[in-house]
């Protein structure tokens, strides 16, 4: 019965073809180093899920941001766990992205025909760092306030347009409620959507070209 239902669905949805082309594709014999991209993808999924749950209680206003996080940590059941996973996955994700990049560099996997996979990867790295930067301000404590002060100050060192960049990031000359709400918007919608889109392209290219084999002596 179950297999009949499955067949009916498969005829219309094509699970088997999807499985064959996405997961059962032929690959060179890899090592654990080849799993860093998947690890990053897993962490991104965790970030999306825990991030959605944090939004249930977090309030992006200077009056309530800090208090709402205190409430998540001490008031809500498992709030410490949800925020803890979000916090540590964020750190791990940056680490994984860098290790993944190093692996691809060392095994020369960025070469023809995978140059664009690397280029998309560079944007993935930048977007991930952007998520780290914007997320760091959201707790609205002393550390996040001054970390953002410093970061936006550094962005202001660009010759010519520096001060304009700082004002754009801060939503004015000073760090304010506007900074918090625009960092929040960037953190929960703009950057995650960008990242998700880029991940789609990245994965498409990986499936299209397959993974690269390790270089041999002749290479």
């Amino acid at each position, binding site marked *: 019965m179950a297999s009949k239902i499955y067949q009916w669905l498969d005829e219309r949805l094509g699970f088997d073809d999807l499985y064959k082309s996405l997961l059962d594709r032929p690959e060179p014999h890899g090592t654990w180093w080849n799993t860093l991209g998947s690890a990053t993808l897993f962490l991104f999924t*965790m970030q999306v*899920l*825990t991030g959605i*749950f944090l939004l*249930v*209680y977090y*309030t992006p206003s200077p009056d*309530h941001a800090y*208090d*709402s996080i*205190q*409430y998540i940590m001490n*008031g*809500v*059941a*498992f*709030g410490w*766990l*949800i925020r803890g*996973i979000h916090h540590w996955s964020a750190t791990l994700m940056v680490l994984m992205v860098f290790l993944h990049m190093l692996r691809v560099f060392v095994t020369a996997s960025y070469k023809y025909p995978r140059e664009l996979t690397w280029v998309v990867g560079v944007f993935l790295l930048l977007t991930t760092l952007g998520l780290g930067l914007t997320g760091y301000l959201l707790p609205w404590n002393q550390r996040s306030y001054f970390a953002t002060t410093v970061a936006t100050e550094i962005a202001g060192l660009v010759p010519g347009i520096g001060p304009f960049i700082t004002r754009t990031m801060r939503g004015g000359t000073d760090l304010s409620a506007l900074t918090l709400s625009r960092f929040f918007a960037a953190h929960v919608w703009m950057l995650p959507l960008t990242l998700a889109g880029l991940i789609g392209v990245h994965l498409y290219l990986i499936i299209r070209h397959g993974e690269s084999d390790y270089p041999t002596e002749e290479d």
Partner: protein
Amino acid sequence: MGKSHEVSRRDFVKIMTGVAGTVIGAGITLPAVGYVLDPAIKSGGSGKEDWIDLGPLENYPIGEPTPFNFTRTQINGWEKTFSTNGLFVLRKSDTEVEVLSNVCTHLGCRVAWHEDKGEFICPCHDGVFDEDGNVISGPPPRPLDHLEFKVEDGNLFVLFKEG
């Protein structure tokens, strides 16, 4: 038949992946459900009650419902909320007292006393109650709630129940 009890390496990996996935999935899903439901569970519905001091009974005129408003503070999450509650004190004679809640029994709007008509009227859906809180017309399913009260040393106290 001899092979049927042996698990192949591939199947073993598949099963272990499934088990690990299920454990991780449940490990995050169950706390997440608790996390979302937490305020609903902790607030626990009604239960909190308090005697509100309405001052000397003689302050309230005989024959007409007199409104009394009071504010209560409540901490919801990270915010202190002030909720204004109201009731009506109706003295029918020196000894006969009724205390009516001003919450419409239809959908919880606040009723107002219309002196000219001698009726409580709810502005939301035109629920109309008489002086004693009985439904005259409109959608309310039952009369206005009568609150428990006591008189001590000439002062009126009302038992207010939350939720």
